[in-house]
């Protein structure tokens, strides 16, 4: 994955960048599967590596495949991103140890989901039970967000096309 990231940063050919980011998504999906988050891994593989690669290729078809050379050396942005990255890494030091059963996140409602979820909802897959039942409002909001994104794309792309058609 680190190799893919460095290659993306160095590459000037945008087609290679799109393919590399697809590879990155697939690697990320395998990491998620290794972490036992199969649902998220599936989403990453289908959305990150599948649909968004196709959409980026479609965008490349419209705007050409070479990245413009930067005007000057990006010293300030590099320093900024290194500082922010270092701060985030420093922040992770305060987190509980990985897979620590006493971590606060496992003490609140997660316990009930795991112990009672299958009995209360009759659904063996806890992820589905939490997503659709316990967190039904959140998922409704998520569906709304997806819907709004689609509606936004429709309004943006359609409005631009119409005047051109009328001008001809």
């Amino acid at each position, binding site marked *: 994955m680190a190799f893919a990231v460095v290659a993306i940063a160095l590459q000037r050919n945008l087609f290679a960048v799109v393919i590399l980011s697809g590879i990155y998504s697939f690697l990320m999906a395998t990491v998620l599967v290794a972490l036992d988050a199969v649902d998220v891994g599936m989403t990453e593989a289908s959305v990150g590596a599948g649909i968004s690669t*196709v959409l980026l290729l*479609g965008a490349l078809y419209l705007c050409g495949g070479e990245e413009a050379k930067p005007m000057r050396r990006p010293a300030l942005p590099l320093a900024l991103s290194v500082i922010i990255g270092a701060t985030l890494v420093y922040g992770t030091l305060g987190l509980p140890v990985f897979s620590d059963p006493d971590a606060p996140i496992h003490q609140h409602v997660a316990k009930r989901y795991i112990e009672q979820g299958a009995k209360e909802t009759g659904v063996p897959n806890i992820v589905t039970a939490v997503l659709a*039942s316990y967190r039904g409002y959140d*998922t409704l909001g998520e569906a709304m967000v997806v819907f709004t994104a689609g509606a936004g794309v429709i309004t943006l792309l359609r409005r631009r096309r119409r005047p051109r058609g009328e001008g001809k």
Partner: protein
Amino acid sequence: MRHYLVLRVVAKLLIPFMLVFALYVQFHGDYGPGGGFQAGVIAAAAVVLYAIIFGLPTARKAIPDWLVETMLAAGVLLYAGVGVAGILLGGNYLDYFVLGATPVDGQHRGIFWVEMGVGITVFGVMLKIFYMFAGRGREPDPE
């Protein structure tokens, strides 16, 4: 790309299985990994593959724009409708316990329809965005 024989044959072989897999992910999400979101994306990916191989106009003929746009809104309405059904049957909004004879039965039914709504919306949105992007730079539609 419809001149490439291998691609055409492989796509024709793959697309039915992709759609069946999407349905499996949709309806088996209670028991295995998956759910509405993943199923919608997989189904949309099958249609995108079809559009790439056989051309955008063919795909638009198979799954027309009005259908995609209807699905976009129908999924959200289905989801919200499940909530309203909960109110009408005497529970709270998005309360599934009242939907069936027993609470567990009601949960099953509620989760099924909610996942269905998510799947329909995601399928519609993904496909619509693809249609929109792929249709740019071509002749404008006779809408």
